[in-house]
């Protein structure tokens, strides 16, 4: 499968999910707009996945353990 075909297959799969959830609210033109947005999301996710990180590279996150003070 070519790279373009792989992207298209991924977009098709994700679009099917969105159509299943919200398809009844959208006409064909709006659905085409959503497809364009999903194509951008897929391209972005592929760019993210292309960068190799180590096991020690943690997410930037604000979580902290919580304990109510008396």
């Amino acid at each position, binding site marked *: 499968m070519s790279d373009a075909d792989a992207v298209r297959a991924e977009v098709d799969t994700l679009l099917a999910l969105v159509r299943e*959830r*919200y398809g009844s609210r959208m006409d064909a033109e709006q659905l085409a707009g959503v497809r364009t947005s999903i194509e*951008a999301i897929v391209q972005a996710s592929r760019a*993210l996945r292309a960068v190799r*990180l180590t096991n020690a590279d*943690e997410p930037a996150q*604000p979580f902290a353990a919580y304990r109510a003070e008396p």
Partner: protein
Amino acid sequence: MAEDVVFTPVRQLAEGIRARRLSPVALTETFLDRLERLGPRYNAVVTVTRDRAIEQARRAEAEIAAGRYRGPLHGIPYGAKDLLATSGGIPTTWGAAPFKDRCFDFDATAILKLEAAGAVLCAKLAMVELAGGMGYRQPNAAFTGPGVNPWNREAWSGGSSSGSGSAVAAGLVPFAIGSETWGSILSPAGNCGLAGLRPTYGRVSRHGAMALCWTLDKLGPLALTADDCGLVLEAIAGRDAADPTTVDRAYRYDAGAPAGRRFRFGVLRGITDGCEDAVRENFARSLEVLRGLGTVEEVALPDLPYDDVTRTILFAEAASAFEDLIESGAIAGLTAPEDHYTPYARDAILAKDYVKALRLRSVMARAADRVLAPLDALVAPGRATVAAMLGAEVRSAIRGTARDVMGAVGNGAGLPAVAVPNGFGARGLPTSLQLMGRAWEENTVLAAARAYQSATDWHRRHPADP
């Protein structure tokens, strides 16, 4: 009071108030009148808070008369982007039709801090609906209509703090509070020829502000000068138990940088690629000015997908923050037609990719800090283009129709930046220069911006009333 106070920087207004040459009540009446008379011409105002303003102004006047001067914002009128909660029956609409009558029973921390500083809330200012988080593509994306640019009323004031930009630029308030997730302070500041300061993430409490993206949202001032931005930042900065992302670092605005201080500026390689000609030319002239203030050197960031990192975080968090609105279909009540369906696509962001973006964000923050460490500021055009026309499609790095490495890195890594005007481009519209620094270095970027403004006069030019 004569309108010669209009377009006077906060610092000079404050001197007049402190010396009791200016009356806070009269000053407030002047700006309330302009907000009511001219605000609709710019679609800049959601609510004029006249009663609250007069009450605060009278209190300020009495305190000052009694010798209890609180500081440089005491008695100074201002406006707040309408995503900051206000009590007392003043609506907080988030710029969105579904919330146009909604009121809160508390004040956002930034509103409370400004009240404590003695500032006078005169208006809740218009904004792009939900701070632009639904993917709008046009200026007409608020129930108040498109933000109109005071320099050219056929052009947009910018987003998403559109009213904050046009109100200050039109002399309707001396300063305003805006918010930035990605570009929403620097964009209207640049489009309207103002100074706009995006503080370090965690510097200013977001409590009571609409959440678009918990890990990207910042509040900051738009004003006539970089110096005024520093005065306002000092009033709104600080740790807040109601916002656990705020840090326990005291902020004191340092306006007294020694004369003749030399700065070290960096410019990212290729930063003007894709800019309009006038933007590129004005930036080149700005660099000449900056070379008179210090050194300018070319620098490079490592090759990482900066835009994709910040965009993925923004889309995923916005989809979660507005889950109810999106899943209920209530987004169909928004103004921009594309906001009715674009957010549905965000369900396609996989959790693993969001976490990868958060991991890369740490890498990005370290890379940016390594580049910034020897510098006082990275400098770049504030925007690649002048403001869009009201009927045109808006180019946006958030949607991927423009590149904005400075915005992606600056917002993704939570770094402070200030935009100041640096000339004019097509259709008589302003262009801008941005200066971005290391985390917590607001005083450094403000000192550099002040030095630039001391050597130029773009900030002294103002549009005529319609």
